[in-house]
């Protein structure tokens, strides 16, 4: 009898702790992602992104090519539920906004990385595409045309 009670207690505790653990791991992962993005940003500092069609002061010295990157993201269930509470009263959803920003940071850094890998130092005409791919997941695509600027910036 005592064994059964102990098992029930453990299960109940586990069920209660699960959302907290899920939220915590999501938060920790996001923190790690931010750090990774920072590192990428430093590494890719030489690649400039603009969304104008041409570089105002110079032409490309190599053949331009398409560069693209994407990321599909979702929030963990705990923070998703907490964030969803906003829908009762309306207003800004900071948790989702932050997640979206992070995803876009990620897409941008991947784009710059891609451009750098192909030997470009600038991406022209950068565009973003956002789409909902599942009830809780969205995709962010960033794409543009990679060029190499002439000697002067």
């Amino acid at each position, binding site marked *: 009898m005592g064994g059964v009670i102990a098992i029930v207690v453990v299960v109940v505790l586990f069920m209660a702790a699960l959302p907290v653990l899920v939220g915590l791991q999501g938060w920790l992962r996001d923190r790690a992602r931010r750090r990774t993005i920072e590192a990428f940003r430093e590494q890719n500092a030489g690649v400039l992104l603009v969304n104008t069609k041409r570089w105002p*002061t110079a032409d490309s010295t190599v053949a331009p090519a398409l560069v693209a990157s994407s990321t599909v993201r979702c929030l963990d269930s705990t923070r998703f539920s907490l964030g969803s509470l906003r829908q009762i009263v309306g207003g800004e959803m900071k948790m989702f906004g932050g997640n979206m920003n992070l995803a876009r940071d990620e897409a941008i850094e991947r784009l710059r990385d891609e451009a750098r890998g192909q030997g470009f130092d600038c991406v022209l005409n950068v*565009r973003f595409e956002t789409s*909902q791919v599942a009830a809780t997941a969205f995709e962010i695509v960033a794409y543009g045309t990679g060029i190499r600027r002439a000697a002067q910036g």
Partner: protein
Amino acid sequence: MIVVTTETVPGYAVTQVIGLVRGNTIRARHVGRDIMAGFKAMVGGEIKSYTELLTKAREEALQRMVEDAQRLGANAVVNLRFSTSSVMQGAAELFAYGTAVLVQPQQGA
């Protein structure tokens, strides 16, 4: 801060390109407004409370983009683009992005 949707600012010359700047906000609808909007959806027409909500949110996204540009020391943003997307049931993301530049008035323009 000059914000334009064209590639260059007429009458100004771009002296330096700073790079991409952006701003976003995600807005949730309001349950009370939802009920009214539900009624409205039966008869069609403009849903004023949503128009107002999204307009305010878009201004906020734009403001954040401008702040980003200011932080980078730009005095103009060219090629501004807006994008709106539904990120989950009942919430919309407003996103504004453009290219931050330094401009100065052209002589004789």
